[in-house]
């Protein structure tokens, strides 16, 4: 039998205003097991906690019921208090008489009656509580970063610098991500490559970092501290260790008509290629979809020219399984498809381009070597229209775009407009905007410079329709402030397309059992207080996989994620959640039902020898739960027909005792 102490909190007038706390304390005194009951103004205050500690000692209490605010608020607080008082922290139950009683009921007698019932339920539960001790599991001191963009790079570098080994898995042949494709960066206008490529080199040279480029994560098993991850290294038909990246094969490859994805298809590359000059790892990759040798078995030029003998047409996909203590998701973003936006004529005219394509057009390493030329005829455009919010801020029912604001478009459009005017002062530049959003250090100043110093025409209003007419693009738009409709004969139109999470994120989330929102952005464990952690323990979020971000924000989040990982890897052992399922082996019949519903694969079966009531021994198949993997949902407990499976902290008996107490 427990010796239970009941502590009723006034929460100032928050509870005491609607609940007669004295009456609650008095009524709960009569409950079985209760030996002490009192009320206090602020139970969570130091004085309140001291009261609990001293009462435990004075009355020799074995269990505590705190009638107070929601357990989501202070359960942890009072568990610590219990620990200070020498009790097991799981001998505490909270009756939520604030959020679920005093705040939703106005009438004092009704509120008091309900508070008593909720208190009784908590007492009934504590009577059946048992001390719980969290299990311990070891931490594998190695981190995995999925995605090798600026987010992944920064996270990996930070973790590696702290002395922990890190692996980066990047699906492209090189790390660098979207940032590698950018020209300049706002608001300082430094060149993206100038600040990114040194970091890429750092990664390549870091003794603690391994890069799995051209690779994907195909399976994740395990749990925080012990993830077993299968990485598929796609065959690139080039021996990475030998390839020097000299580029002879690229030059000699006869198949040169492959759209170059690095330049968004605005020029071509060869079938064996190195995405760009500063690629890391700088090794060639054969595109099997276009390689004549791989398709027909006839060619082999690259193999012949390779002095290092690095070409291997027989290379197969390779699967590597590695154990990690932590996983950082940095899968990044993509611009959305423009297929559904007929009004912008993206698919009709080559001269309607996305902002990312514009980046490549102005990039010195881009298809035009940095000269701003129209993709259709290579002429210099004299009138350029930028359209903001293309696909962003769409109503969900519109089904074309995204409901959210993509956050970065206002700034990069200002950047584009400014750079264009700077380089080509003879060009007229129009920016159509709905709102210009510039919250950020030096952001608004940057935008104002575009308007004031560079004479960019910012027009409040949206482009309704773009019609290619001869060499021109007729842009029809409204100028809401002047109250007129504009028809501009532009030479080039740049669409600030919305960004969306990378397509691979959804399947990755399933593997990681990490949750996502309806837009496929990874959900953070808490939107404000735990923004870089996923609700799945041991999985962290870095960069735009969590939501739209610019580079400075991405880098700071990447650093934050790294510091969380470092904090985790610095531990030798992890304490688990003790509220996990466990199987009563004497009752378990090994039917496998529980295994089928466990989302974590926490249940396995083993054959064990048992002594039976008839004094014989028998080998029986029984379920066993890995407490480090189990997250305590309790799904198995309901599936188990014999009731052999129960959930610590929320046992069948405890919940039924609560039901009984509420219904009596």
């Amino acid at each position, binding site marked *: 039998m427990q010796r239970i102490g009941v502590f009723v909190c006034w929460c100032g007038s928050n509870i005491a205003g609607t609940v007669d706390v004295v009456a609650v304390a008095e009524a709960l005194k009569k409950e079985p097991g209760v030996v002490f009951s009192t009320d206090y103004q602020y139970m969570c205050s130091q004085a309140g906690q001291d009261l609990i500690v001293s009462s435990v000692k004075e009355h020799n209490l074995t269990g505590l019921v705190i009638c107070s605010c929601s357990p989501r608020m202070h359960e942890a607080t009072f568990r610590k208090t219990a620990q200070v008082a020498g009790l097991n922290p799981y001998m505490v139950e909270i009756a939520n008489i604030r*959020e679920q009683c005093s705040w*939703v009921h106005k009438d004092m007698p009704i509120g008091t009656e309900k508070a008593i019932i909720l208190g009784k339920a908590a007492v009934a539960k504590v009577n059946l509580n048992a001390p719980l001790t969290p299990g311990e599991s070891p931490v594998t001191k190695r981190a995995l970063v999925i995605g090798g963009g600026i987010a992944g790079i920064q996270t990996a570098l930070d973790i590696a610098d702290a002395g922990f080994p890190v692996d980066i898995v990047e699906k492209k042949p090189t790390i660098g991500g979207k940032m590698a494709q950018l020209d300049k960066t706002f608001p300082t206008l430094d060149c993206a490559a100038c600040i990114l490529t040194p970091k890429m080199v750092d990664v390549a040279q870091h003794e603690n970092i391994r890069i799995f480029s051209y690779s994907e994560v195909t399976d994740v098993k395990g749990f925080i501290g012990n993830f077993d991850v299968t990485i598929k290294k796609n065959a690139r038909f080039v021996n990475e260790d030998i390839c020097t990246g000299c580029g002879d094969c690229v030059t000699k490859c006869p198949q040169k008509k492959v759209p170059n994805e690095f330049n968004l298809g605005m020029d071509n590359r060869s079938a064996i290629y190195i995405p760009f000059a500063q690629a890391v790892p700088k090794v060639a990759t054969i595109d099997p979809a276009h390689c004549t040798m791989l398709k027909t078995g006839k060619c082999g030029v690259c193999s012949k020219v390779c002095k290092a003998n690095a070409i291997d047409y027989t290379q197969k996909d390779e699967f590597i399984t590695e154990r990690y203590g932590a996983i950082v998701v940095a899968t990044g973003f993509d611009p959305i498809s423009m297929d559904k936006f007929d009004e912008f004529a993206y698919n009709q005219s080559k001269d309607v381009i996305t902002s990312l394509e514009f980046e490549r057009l102005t990039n010195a390493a881009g298809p035009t070597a940095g000269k701003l030329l129209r993709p259709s005829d290579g002429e210099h455009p004299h009138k350029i229209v930028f359209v903001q919010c293309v696909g962003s801020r769409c109503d969900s029912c519109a089904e074309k775009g995204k409901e959210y604001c993509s956050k970065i478009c206002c700034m990069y459009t200002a950047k584009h407009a400014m750079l264009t005017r700077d380089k080509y002062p003879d060009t007229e530049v129009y920016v159509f905007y709905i709102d210009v959003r510039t919250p950020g250090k030096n952001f608004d100043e940057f935008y104002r410079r575009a308007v004031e110093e560079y004479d960019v025409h910012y027009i409040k209003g949206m482009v309704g329709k773009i019609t290619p007419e001869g060499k021109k693009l007729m842009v029809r738009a409204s100028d809401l402030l002047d109250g007129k409709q504009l028809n501009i004969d532009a030479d080039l139109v740049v669409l600030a397309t919305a960004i969306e999470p990378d397509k691979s994120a959804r399947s990755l989330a399933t593997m990681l059992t990490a949750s996502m929102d309806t837009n496929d952005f990874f959900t953070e464990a808490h939107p404000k207080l735990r923004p870089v952690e996923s609700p799945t323990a041991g999985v962290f979020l870095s960069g735009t996989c969590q939501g739209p971000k610019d580079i400075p924000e991405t880098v700071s989040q990447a650093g934050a994620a790294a510091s969380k990982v470092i904090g985790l890897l610095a531990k030798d052992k992890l304490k688990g959640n003790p509220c996990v399922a466990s199987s009563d082996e004497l009752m378990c019949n090994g039917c496998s039902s529980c295994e089928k519903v466990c989302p974590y694969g926490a249940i396995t079966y083993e054959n064990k020898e048992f002594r039976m009531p008839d004094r014989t021994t028998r080998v029986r198949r029984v379920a066993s739960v890995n407490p480090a993997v189990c997250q305590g*949902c*309790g*799904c198995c407990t309901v599936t188990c027909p014999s009731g052999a499976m129960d959930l610590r902290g929320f046992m069948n008996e405890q919940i039924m005792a609560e*039901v009984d107490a509420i219904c*009596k």
Partner: protein
Amino acid sequence: MQVKEYKPLIVAFCCNWCSYAGADLAGNNRLNYPADVKIIRVPCSCRVNPMFILRAFQRGADGVILCGCHPGDCHYTSGNYFTRRRMAMLFSMLDFLGIERERTRVEWVSAAEGAKFAATMNDFVTQVAALGENKRLEDLRCKK
């Protein structure tokens, strides 16, 4: 003896991650709902055993409602999908036995849906109150 106004007794099982937080939010926003609703916290809606529901009716509950995360949002990824099937089957069995289907309900309430929680509870209490006392699944021994 004074005739007591009939007050239905409602047991609400709420999952810790969404619906219990939704109920807390209803409290934070001071959204009223009848005190007849008593909440039991469970880690996930999938923790709710049909036996708990029968137990509640046995002990005098007039209605039982189960609240969990919206499908797809389960903290444990799939718990509420199992809940959805189990409860669909259980409720339809209760209906088959002639027990009023209006006494049971499953509702998905997210942590952000304080207003939905309060509205759901108001609606459910009205619905159950309209049926009157639970006579078909009562255990007379447990009557006061």
